[in-house]
């Protein structure tokens, strides 16, 4: 049973003493539906970007001699990239995540001289580079994390699972209550931001097996 944006906004209205109507109207004029929907989308994408909880499979056709390809829309980060050459025996090779500095210094002229791809790196412009430049046609199989479906305020289901929706809710409340103006409530905004960060850390810990590094605070005297 996926939560919809209307159900989440209804809860937000209860939390902010607005008359609950699934987020359609905000009579206090402190917030608008459009604004809250935007907060929902941004916080959901932030959860997805910081924790990478869902993986999607995508493929990119590789052409011999071409080392730069466009990534799928909504790409956040790759779990793995595997190159399978067309020429028999077509043994798939997992590419190592790297960066341009390593490629330039580890494989000089990687973009000029063809070879069996060994590593990949991505750029914020949604491009993926493989090095060295492939010496064969083939296919890149991407397992990657992606952004969520944008909320609309019309019943769009959340991309995140129901168990993560409370974390999303507190993230949105943090945005709503830190708005400069009459809606500003720094104490509750700070509390909500801490709830959001703790939730993100919980997901990170469950997925990676260790607690994200946090500065330990001195115990009270």
């Amino acid at each position, binding site marked *: *049973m996926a939560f919809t944006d209307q159900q989440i906004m*209804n*809860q937000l209205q*209860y*939390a*902010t*003493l607005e008359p*609950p109507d699934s987020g359609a109207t905000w009579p206090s004029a402190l917030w608008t539906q459009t604004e809250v929907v935007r907060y929902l989308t941004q916080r959901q994408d932030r959860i997805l970007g910081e924790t*990478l*909880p*869902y*993986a999607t*499979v995508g493929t990119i056709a590789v052409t011999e001699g071409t080392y730069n390809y466009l990534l799928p829309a909504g790409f956040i980060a790759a*779990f*793995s990239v*595997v190159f399978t050459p067309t020429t028999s025996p077509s*043994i*798939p*090779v*997992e590419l*190592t*995540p790297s960066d341009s500095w390593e490629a330039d210094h580890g494989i000089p002229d990687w973009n000029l001289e063809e070879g069996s791809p060994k590593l990949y790196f991505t750029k914020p412009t949604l491009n993926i580079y493989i090095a060295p430049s492939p010496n064969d046609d083939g296919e890149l199989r991407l*397992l990657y*994390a992606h952004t969520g479906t944008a909320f609309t305020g019309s019943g769009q289901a959340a991309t995140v*699972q*129901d*168990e*993560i*929706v*409370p974390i999303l*809710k507190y993230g949105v*409340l943090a945005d709503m209550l830190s708005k400069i103006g009459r809606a500003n*409530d720094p*104490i*509750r905004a*700070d*509390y909500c931001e*801490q709830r959001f960060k*703790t939730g993100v*850390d*919980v*997901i990170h*810990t*469950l*997925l*990676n*097996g260790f*607690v994200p590094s*946090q500065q*330990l*605070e001195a*115990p*009270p005297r």
Partner: protein
Amino acid sequence: MLSDRYEGVAFWTSTEATDAINEALLMWNLLTGMWSTPITIMSVAGTNEYALTASVVFGTRVEYEGRTLNKSYQWEMDNGRPGWQTEQLGDVGVPNTVQKWIPLGLKRIALWPVPDTTNDSIVVDGVAATPRLSAGGDYIDVGSELINAIVGYALHTIVFKEGGQRFQTSIPLYQDFLKQAAGRNDLLTELFRQQIMKDYNREQEHPRA
């Protein structure tokens, strides 16, 4: 039970109460994995990645043909065994049986080495989708020793809208919820310890009048 925790007229609607209790249940399940269920997936030769069904929130344990697999993590495999995703059973230097399972996000797992047989059974024990209340008379399977923490969290959620001192006084209910959850998930104990200390320190910065 929720109204037992408040003196005077309840300042919430039944919908609010239901939402708050369901939020408590969702958080409790995420933090402790209390409700669990097994699912069975059939292997595909040459495939090492498998998606989990919607009935499972995330996997906690995997058996391959009745044998429990060791759990690893992607960062561990990527750094300790580069190229692990394409290593087949029986390759040089690769074991002859599936040894490990690796979560790839919440809804996907990978096996190492890659299975070479189709229709082997992969049993995934996972955290089940959280049971929720929707109407009066609904019940959920939870021990009575947990009711206090869950109702306390629900009350804390409802009081949020009040703000100010009333909200501040309900923070210990949330901290107690975390302590109870930490006692059931060692993986999160350190994380919660830091969060509980942070909450305490925040109270010190904003003392009640």
